[in-house]
């Protein structure tokens, strides 16, 4: 895990190092504060009455804690249904995305073939076109093949994104070519190299892609808003936005609901984060 902190370091401990360390933690704590201030505000607002949320001067700690806000939101919106739907979509999309992207990226990163660069530019090009522009044509198509108002519309929309392919390509490019050459000499075909050599090494990249895909699907609003209509199908962001529009003045409840919607994604992040750290060093790569 620590590549720089070698054993020799201990002998060099000087006053300067101590100061540096203190500075480092001070900076980290400062950034932590900056990152968390809005969340603290959200938390404190979620425990106030709606009229106190924007009172000036602002109070970070409410006079009385209104914990009932958290029970109220569960009565006012079927958050659990939204959670179930969204989790379901997000898991399918994430799995599909990882499978197809990690497969396709291999061709772009490790193989020579005609039309490679052109195709790759097409992928990148589509990322650059704002979705709002092709939303209507896409909707017409999706409806004609009968996927409108099913969660499968979201699955097919997000499973084949160019983003995943690009991300995986970049990580594959970082894997030394000699590794696959050696495997080729040992008689492995391309599929074998992908499955046995590249994929195990790409764990951090897969973890990254998994997190990003999960979070993006979780937080997607426009997609579900356009493609889903029935109440049964609603996802968390649509539900949350509905809630905000219906209870536009109750910012305490809105903040409470927003904080609740954070929990599942945070869990996914915590579960996956150990994989970024488990580096190539531990997978036994010798450059």
């Amino acid at each position, binding site marked *: 895990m620590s590549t720089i902190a070698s054993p020799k370091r201990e002998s060099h401990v000087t006053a300067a190092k101590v100061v540096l360390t203190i500075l480092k933690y001070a900076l980290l704590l400062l950034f932590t504060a900056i990152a968390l201030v809005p969340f603290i505000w959200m938390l404190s607002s979620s425990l106030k009455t*709606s*009229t106190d949320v*924007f009172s000036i001067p602002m109070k970070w700690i409410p006079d009385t804690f209104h914990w009932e806000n958290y029970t109220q939101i569960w009565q006012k919106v079927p958050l659990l249904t939204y959670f179930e*739907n969204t989790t*379901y979509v997000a898991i399918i999309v994430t799995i599909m995305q990882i499978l197809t992207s990690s497969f396709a990226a291999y061709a772009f990163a490790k193989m020579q073939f005609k039309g490679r660069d052109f195709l790759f530019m097409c992928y990148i090009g589509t990322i650059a076109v704002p979705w709002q522009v092709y*939303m*209507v044509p896409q*909707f*017409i198509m*999706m*409806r*004609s093949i009968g996927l*409108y108002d*099913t*969660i*499968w519309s979201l699955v097919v929309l997000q499973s084949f994104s160019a983003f995943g392919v690009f991300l995986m390509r970049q990580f594959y490019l970082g894997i030394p070519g000699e590794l696959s050459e050696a495997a080729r000499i040992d008689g492995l075909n391309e599929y074998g190299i992908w499955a046995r050599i590249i994929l195990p090494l790409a764990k951090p990249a897969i973890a990254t892609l998994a997190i990003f895909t999960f979070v993006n699907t979780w937080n997607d609003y426009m997609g579900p*808003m*356009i493609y889903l*209509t029935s*109440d*049964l199908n609603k996802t968390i962001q*649509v539900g949350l*936005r*509905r809630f905000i*529009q*219906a209870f*536009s*003045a*109750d*910012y305490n409840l809105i903040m409470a609901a927003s904080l609740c919607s954070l929990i599942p994604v945070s869990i996914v992040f915590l579960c996956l984060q150990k994989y970024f750290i488990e580096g190539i060093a531990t997978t036994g790569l010798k450059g």
Partner: protein
Amino acid sequence: MKKLLSIVLCLTMMASCVAFAAAEGTTTLTVAGWDTATAPYYEAVKTAYEAANPGVTIEWVDLASQEYNVKASTMLAGGDTTDIFFVKELSDMQNWAKEGFIVDMNDKIASTSYDMSKYAGMDTCYQLAGTTDYYALPFRADFWVLFYNKTLFDKASVEYPTNDMTWDAYKDLAIKMTGDGVYGTHYHTWLSAVANWAVCDGVNTLADGEYSDLKYFYQMVQDLEDAGACMTYDELKAANLHYSGAFAQGNIAMMPMGYWYASTLIGYIKDGTADFDWGITAVPHLDGVAAGSSFGSPTGLAVNAKSANADAAWDFVAWACGEEGAKAVAATGTRPAYVSEEVATVMAAADGFPTDDASMAALLPTAISLEWPVGDGVNDIKTIVNEEHSLIMTRELSIDEGVAEMEERAAEFIKK
């Protein structure tokens, strides 16, 4: 599991279609609207219609209110078969009509000799621009009134605002009521809450390219802000403060707002969010403009051209926009487009509506101008006026500069 569920759902939907074909006389009409679960009039209309028309079921398709036009336009372009669509914005309807998404109602109106005279002129905006072809009927017609907090006026021993009050008198009253944590009045951040009053004279419109008539209102609002008689635009924007919560707090004496707020306020009083007496009056007027003049915009009902139940859909639209529908709507404290003495009585009798004579009288305005006219280029002008509005209200531009820029930029879109 979910897949199974969706398959089962599909099957039941198909089955219900088959059942509909088999069991003659049972029709399900789907109607796309917004806030269908929270606004009480939807349920009232559904219940009343189903009682009057056995065999027909109304099913609301609830779309997000802020994105209603995006979603509804996309659905219609995509060939969705939802039978009826609410028309939130007049310009949406114009485009839907032009593109053939919604049905021309002229034949039906003629064959049923439908009475178009009861809408106080609101019906003509549902004609395709430049023709006399109706593509929707007016369902609700909200106009602007002045809400006031009786409890605050009583406490300050000041007389209530009246149905005949000039803007100058209103301004003095607002300043008089200010103090001790009380704001004399409240303006939401919209253009319509601040400067739309200029159209109440029935002559000016916001699309005429001439905006010096707005200066008086901007000046009045800025004076009130400076006097501390209302919260500033800057504060309201930054805090995303919604007018409904603001007035419900009980420290605002008056607020010009659309009539739709009445049903929200009634709800707040019922569930204890707000705790005070309130009343409404007609909005103030300029010298020389008749008292009781206001502006507003209608909400209509249109029939999808792809609907499989076009006749049944027209039946529902005609009913909902007619006297029976109007009564059902009025009983929930919402103002239907169809106006008659009888409907006004029902409206005033709505549970929770203030019972004083002035408030009842305020329900029958003398004239209602359109908030925005309909026509080519109006959308572009609307964008421009709204943009300059935000510059004036944040005081990034002086009133004169802002109005000058409005006129300069709008000139391009004004039909000569």
